[in-house]
Structure formats: C-alpha cells, structure tokens
C-alpha cells in the first residue's frame, strides 16, 4: 500500500508544479491567491500521505499547522492587500485589473 501512496505523493507534487502556471498567468491577484490556497491543500495531503509512508507521526502535526494557518493567508489577502489597493485607487478602478495583472 505504501508504494501506491508514494506514487500518489509524486502525482500530487506534479499537480502543484502544473498548477504553478496559474501563478504565472494570473491575471488578477485573486487568481494567484486561489492557486496558493490550492497548493496548501495539496501540501496538506502530501504531508498526510508522507506521514504514513515514512511512518512518522510528527508530519501529521505539520499538516495540522498548515491546515490551521490556511485561513490566515486568505484573510490577510482580502483584509489588507486587496481592499487597501482598492480604497486607494478606487478613482482609477477601471484600469485597476490590468495594472494589477502586469
């Protein structure tokens, strides 16, 4: 069974690497943030599988910490980075999306 899990871990990592294309392409900040959230889910799954493959329970704790902090990045993003940009540049709201996407 652990061999199967090892293959799955590899596929999940490949999944992350393929998903990096969304970070590259954007276009808006939210899309990149979503990609990052997706990666943290995949990383949690990888850690869980690795905990069973390597038979090392501490990795479950690492996954727990990652799961706990998954909310923090999104909340900071929405509460600080994204809304501040808007309040400051709302007058140029039309050009906003294109500028942000560089």
């Amino acid at each position, binding site marked *: 069974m652990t061999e199967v899990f090892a293959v799955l871990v590899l596929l*999940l990592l490949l999944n992350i690497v393929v998903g990096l294309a969304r970070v590259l392409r954007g276009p808006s900040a939210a899309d990149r943030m979503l990609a990052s959230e997706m990666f943290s889910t995949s990383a949690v799954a990888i850690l869980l599988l690795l905990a069973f493959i390597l038979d090392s329970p501490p990795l479950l704790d690492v996954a727990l910490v990652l799961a706990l902090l998954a909310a923090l990045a999104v909340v900071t993003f929405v509460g600080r980075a994204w809304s501040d940009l808007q309040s400051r540049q709302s007058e140029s709201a039309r050009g906003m999306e294109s500028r942000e996407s560089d």
Partner: protein
Amino acid sequence: MSLTDLLGGLLVLLGMPFFFLGTLGLLRFPDAYTRLHALAKTDNVGLGLVCLGLALYSGSWLTGLKLLLIWLLMLVASAAGAGLIGRTAMARGMKPWGL
C-alpha cells in the same frame, strides 16, 4: 492486508481525481469565480476522502480524530476564504464570466 486497509487505500485513491480536476479547473476555467468553485471541490471532497481513507488505514482512534480535525480546519478555511474572496471580487466590480 485487512479489509479496512484496503478500504482506506481505496478511499484515498478515490480522493485523488478531485485534486487533479481541481488543478484542471484552476487552469482552464475562465474567471476567478469559477476557479473558486473548482478549488472548493479539492478542499472539501478531495482532502475529505484522503483524510477518511487514511483514518481507516491507520486504524487508531487518536490519529483518526486528528485527521478529522485537519479536514474540518481546511473546510472552515476554504468556506470562509471562498466567501471573502467572492464578496471582495464582486465589490471591486470584477464581472463574472458570461454575464
């Protein structure tokens, strides 16, 4: 290999397609709202099945509870995050695709 092991492994395998489809959706869907939808499937169903499968596979209550906690935390983060991103995107005037 016992039956619970097999069942656990099967559930983990069943969860994997959700991860791949989630990434596919992230790459192929046209705008942030639809991508939000793809992401939620991975967080909720994909990780849920993996956690459930591994909990069966581990065969220990304590590990199972920890896995359940991990899944619940991801659920909370995903639900709240999706709501916040969606609302903020709307407020910023980002147009949903096809409307």
